[in-house]
């Protein structure tokens, strides 16, 4: 952040042409990767060259031409990519599993170090290959530009998985502007704060509880640790995604958002539409739908879903606990669809939310604890098998020290700031009585996001307030529910909304209020939010410099 980033940005923006900037980005990305993987950078280069050659082969024939030739090329490409990731990521896992089953070291365990980011760039390359085959994207003739797309450092190590069809125009025709750069910086700062100030700090609590083990921490310590890990993994992942989207924005790219407040979900189905969106849509579009999706018999559908969740689990790590984690969600999704989904919809939102929270929090335990014996002990502690605090005193657990961090994490995992921004914009747009007026299409938040078709049920309407006079008959509760429902329908809370435009933007020019006071207030709020962001940035830098605990979880990807 203090060396590579400023030098790269300076070089990038000093270059006059698109071609030069693309080359600069490619070179910087390869350097960035080589910095962490001085040997395996060659593997990535080979992957780029092979995938580019294969897609160009595909591209020489139109999509509707001889199926055999194109199909064979596709199969070759898929096999190549699967072999690359399969060998480097799963060789040891497969060898150990077979050897354990046979009771002898038949298959050599090469114990290969995992190349950083192989799971991400391989999936990106695969998506590109399949999209070209399907005709959804034109092949990139320039190998260097293709290499830039695959190796682009903002999202190379930790995603999001960027589909070529989403950015192919941007490769050659994107526009870097001051406004986009500044908004990219804002996103980057938020991502950095999520990572450095939240994930890295709460991770200490999680790690302490795990290290002390179940018998020593009891019910309170184990739940504190698991909830800490729940926040850690979210802010780690989401933080990196925001940083990637922000960096991309600075460079003129528009990436899709990867996390959309997953912890406010009211069902597991919804959760997986909000969590790691680029991964879940990848498996949906390239595995689930080609297998038949849900347009088949129930038995076949269950099989399709199982395949997807087996792969999802395995993608996260080469170990049985990840397979178990994938199976856990696969079974739950089947259950929601076939068994209790309808009943779930009739429950109050609070209960549905609670149900979802319990499921994903418990699910993280399988993801987090790789050792079976340790997991068993931990679950015993979670269920009170070792008392409230195990063999420790409450003070000794130290999880209570993280109470403020838990509170901040809780608030940050909810769309509090977008809701506040929505209120401000609405107030500024519609006049003094805007908050009490009936929610209508015109009063929807004037952000760049399009309104999505699904979401919460329509807000209850009320009689329009008399001009200049507040409608005192409306209760605060009704008004709040109306606003929340309106916000849910019109803004980024919507589960299907994955565009990142509008994120972190407080576009003062969109405010068309005739009231100068409102405009001034909005300007002041925008300025204050920038001051707060800068303070967050400085605090994050201090945390980074202090060299505190930095669980870089992506080494397993």
């Amino acid at each position, binding site marked *: *952040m*203090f*060396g590579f*980033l*400023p*030098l790269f*940005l300076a070089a990038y923006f000093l270059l006059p042409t698109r071609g030069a900037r693309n080359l600069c980005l490619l070179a910087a990305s390869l350097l960035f990767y080589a*910095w*962490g993987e*001085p*040997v395996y950078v060659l593997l990535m280069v080979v992957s780029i060259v092979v995938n580019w050659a294969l897609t160009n082969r595909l591209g020489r024939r139109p999509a509707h031409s001889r199926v055999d030739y194109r199909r064979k090329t596709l199969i070759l490409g898929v096999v190549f990519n699967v072999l690359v990731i399969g060998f480097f990521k799963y060789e040891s896992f497969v060898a150990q599993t077979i050897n354990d089953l046979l009771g002898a070291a038949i298959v050599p365990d090469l114990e290969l170090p995992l190349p950083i980011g192989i799971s991400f760039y391989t999936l990106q390359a695969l998506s590109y290959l399949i999209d070209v085959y399907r005709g959804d994207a034109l092949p990139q003739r320039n190998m260097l530009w293709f290499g830039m797309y695959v190796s682009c450092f903002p999202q190379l190590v930790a995603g999001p998985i960027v589909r070529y069809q989403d950015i192919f125009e941007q490769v050659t025709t994107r526009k870097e502007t*001051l*406004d986009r*750069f*500044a*908004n990219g*910086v*804002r996103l980057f*700062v938020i991502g950095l704060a999520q990572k450095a100030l939240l994930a890295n*700090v709460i991770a*200490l*609590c999680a790690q302490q509880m795990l290290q002390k083990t179940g018998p020593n921490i009891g019910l309170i310590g184990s739940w504190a640790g698991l909830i800490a890990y729940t926040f850690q993994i979210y802010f780690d992942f989401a933080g990196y995604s925001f940083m990637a989207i922000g960096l991309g924005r600075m460079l003129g790219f528009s990436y899709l958002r990867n996390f959309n407040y997953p912890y406010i979900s009211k069902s597991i189905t919804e959760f997986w539409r909000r969590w790691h969106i680029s991964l879940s849509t990848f498996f949906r579009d390239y595995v689930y739908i080609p297998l038949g999706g849900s347009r088949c018999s129930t038995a076949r559908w269950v099989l399709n879903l199982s395949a997807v969740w087996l792969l999802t689990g395995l993608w996260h790590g080469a170990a049985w606990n990840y397979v178990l984690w994938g199976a856990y969600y696969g079974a739950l999704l089947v259950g929601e669809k076939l068994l209790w989904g309808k009943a779930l919809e009739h429950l109050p939102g609070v209960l549905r939310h609670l149900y979802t929270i319990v499921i994903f929090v418990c699910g993280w335990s399988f993801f987090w604890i790789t050792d079976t014996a340790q997991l068993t002990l931990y679950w015993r502690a979670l269920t009170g098998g070792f008392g409230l605090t195990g*063999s*420790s*005193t*409450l*003070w*000794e657990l*130290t999880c*209570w*020290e*993280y*109470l*403020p*961090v838990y509170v901040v994490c809780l608030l940050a995992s909810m769309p509090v700031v977008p809701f506040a921004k929505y209120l401000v914009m609405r107030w500024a747009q519609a006049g003094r009585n805007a908050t009490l007026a009936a929610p209508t299409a015109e009063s929807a938040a004037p952000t760049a996001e399009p309104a999505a078709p699904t979401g919460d049920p329509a807000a209850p309407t009320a009689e329009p307030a008399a001009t200049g006079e507040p409608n005192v008959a409306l209760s605060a509760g009704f008004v709040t529910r109306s606003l929340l429902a309106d916000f849910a329908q019109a803004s980024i809370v919507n589960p299907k909304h994955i565009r990142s435009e509008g994120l972190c933007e407080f*576009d*003062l*020019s969109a*405010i068309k209020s005739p009231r100068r006071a409102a*405009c001034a207030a909005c*300007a002041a709020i*925008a*300025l204050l939010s*920038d001051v707060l*962001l*800068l303070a967050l*940035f*400085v*605090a994050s*830098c*201090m*945390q980074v*410099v*202090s*060299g*505190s*605990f930095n669980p870089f979880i992506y080494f397993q990807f």
Partner: protein
Amino acid sequence: METLTRTRNVIFASLFALVTCCVILARVLHGIGVPLPDWTGVYSDRSALESRYYTPRPKLSAGALLDGTFQTETEAWTSDRVPMRDAALLGNAALQRTGIALAANVMGYDAYHTFYGSSIIHYTPSKVLLREPSQIQPTDAEAYQKASDALDGVAQKYPNIRFFMYNPPNSDYLDDSPAARLMTAPLTHSFMAEHLYASLDHVTVINAQVSYGEYLTGWHHTDHHWTVRGAYDGYARIADAMGFGDLVIPAGEVEYATYEQPVFYGSDARTGRCLDYDDRIMDFGPSFHIPAHQALINGEDWGDESLAHRTKYQHGEWSSNLLNNRYAEYFHGDYANMCITSYEARTDKTLLLVADSYSNNIERLFLSEYGTVLEYDVRYNFDTLSTYLDAHSEVDDVLILMSQPDFMNESMQKTLA
């Protein structure tokens, strides 16, 4: 509105650039000779807060690139060169401590860690920083037993030498410290006494246990060392046990002098990154007689006042770095070997102090009795204690003056053998 937005964006992006370029800017300014204030830390090659030297510029080589050494060192070098780095560390800890203090208030605790992951405890009622006791581990008893065997073995080898042991406690070894009271199985003095002392048949153990109240009086509040007041109380116990208790002045008659400047942020303040409390350096008063002596440190004569830099402090000569280790600055640092010759000793006996930094403000007191005081710091010597004693046959008494944690160290156990 558009102008406003644009202005906002320009300022925001500029400030972001300024922060991310701070290392590069600082190096460039440093390189072209632009004078920067000391508080930026740009010209410093050492962190007083972390008590370490900054990473030197890494050397580029193919091997270092391939095995990642160059990358690791470059990242460390860059991190070390962030301007106001110590301030950043302190600021970050203070921010976290605000949250922790709030939580402690809610929970009704007076003791809490100075930052997340810290081992130092902030205890408000006594305005003191304490070390968090370790929890007793299954291997601890064995570690103490090994140290005990090593020491006793040495003592047996030299029947003509008297062996004594005095272990002044750090705050984490106090049986009744506020932190120990909040834990289930803290590793404190009682546990050590049970396992280290029990099989010491040829070493006389002198009781060094102090209560929390005595600790507050005799130790620094932000440093793990004792003050000269605490050291003198320890000397009194030692002298009594070793047979020269008649030289001890009653506690109420000892004169002490405290230097109001400079402010002393001790080891616990620096480790805990907490400057909420501070200490002052204390020495014996002008009427307290220290025998005339000559001190050789690692074989070299470092001149008068090499054991306590009284004159320098009286003239206001101390480091301007707020976080400097004043204990080492006033008394002296830790050295592998010292030889102090007393010109006013009652006897011409030789005492060997097997010591750590606790000896730095107590060694002068033995010069009234012993003609020669040798010091052997286990942490910096490669020879074993036996090898040292073989080379110094003039030693009459051995006093092992080490704080408790040192005995758990395996290399320490080997050196003590």
